[in-house]
């Protein structure tokens, strides 16, 4: 099986989510490991724009043919955009988990939470355990 990739410019949450932080905003998604464990994503049930999400709590669901997985927020904030392209092409989450397969963009309410997230090397180390 092909090994996962974990870009260095992202921050990672133990529940297999990533955040790309740009100022007071962040783009969120699930990691290569998460999409590989889940299998082919067939449905992404997004939160509404304007909804508040809480670090370490579920904010959405992704589903494969046989399984449902909660998506855990790596950071707290307010949803400013959801990836609408996933409605027609949910498989993007598998094909390009850090690019076209992003899930939501949030305005961060507590940017300092980012310090609690893992770097790519630390996340990888956690997966190896």
């Amino acid at each position, binding site marked *: 099986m092909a090994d996962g990739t974990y870009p260095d410019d992202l921050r990672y949450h133990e529940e297999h989510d990533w955040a790309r932080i740009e100022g007071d905003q962040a783009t969120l998604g699930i990691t290569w490991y998460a999409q590989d464990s889940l*299998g082919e994503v*067939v*449905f992404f*049930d997004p939160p509404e724009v304007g909804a508040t999400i809480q670090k370490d709590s579920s904010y959405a*669901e992704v*589903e494969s*043919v*046989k399984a*449902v997985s909660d998506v855990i927020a790596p950071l707290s904030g307010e949803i400013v955009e959801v990836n609408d392209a996933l409605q027609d092409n949910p498989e993007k989450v598998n094909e390009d988990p850090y690019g076209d397969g992003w899930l939501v963009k949030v305005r961060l309410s507590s940017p300092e939470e980012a310090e609690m997230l893992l770097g790519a090397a630390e996340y990888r180390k956690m997966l190896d355990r």
Partner: protein
Amino acid sequence: MAESRRTPLFEQHVDLGAKVVPFAGWEMPVTYEGIREEHSAVRRHVGMFDVSHMGEVEVEGPGALAFLQRVLSNDVARIEIGAAQYSCLCQGDGGVLDDLFAYRLGGDRYLIVTNAANHETDLAWLGRQSREFEVIVRDVADRYAMLAVQGPHARQVLSSALGIELPPRFHVSHVRVGRRPALACGTGYTGEDGVELLIDPEVAAPIWSELLDAGVVPCGLGARDTLRLEVCFPLHGNELTPERNPIEAGLGWCCKEETGFVGSEAIARARAVGTAETLVAFKIEGQGIPREGNPVLHEGEPVGVVTSGTFSPSLELGAGMAYVSSQLAEAGTEIEIDVRGKRRPARIASKPLYAKRS
């Protein structure tokens, strides 16, 4: 917890990168390359499933027919030598202990194939019921590995790769596979044409490789479930349980009460007066994927529960089966499925959900 068992093909599954999960006490492949791909291989070409976890029970002796007529719901007297028949194994109140195929291998020799999760309880039940019959009930599960080769090209690929004569649908033939005696059964659980091979576990690995080389796509239990669900084949443990009788499950066609089988009186009553609930198929209209255990609503009121739900790879939408109040069990009825708090509009559909275009 008892240790999980492995089929003779476990190494092959690992080598192919299968995702292996515990299932009914076995470590089984759920998928190799992806459920959708495997599903469509079976619908369009040919796929193979290692179903060696399923159990086999041989019933032999002068009382074999009388005994099976007593324990199985269908009319066993109609099975000719070399033929196969689907039945329920019922308890006295009509509850379904298992559903299975019985194959008549000889004059007074039958083989039944049990669901893995029920094999031990079936054996105990059959053993108890057999006391007053001149018959031997033998657990022969260890004698067989089982490969289900399914899809429109299954027969063609099998006969050219293995050089064996294949039985017609719902028949069984004695063949040789890997130079060992084997059984080829014209049955399956996918809604496609195909053959189930019962072979010597010793030759399972080379036969698996041979079929892989012939282009047969390895398929896991994930695709097996989506395939059977699209054609509305019930699964014991989901649609069928000891708390449900075959009538409410829509299996009245395989119950011949006049044979006097165990449970026949209760089933005759259920057939005559009707059942409170009926098993239906449904499709989600719009977004959402139903899952086992989701409540079914009608005009806001709870009217049933989902027994199996999935994303249907052929229909590309959420679909499933559910028990609902019998007065609502008509194709076209609008319902809602409560999917973890979100009400998803759905409609009761006629069975099967997926029908092959001919």
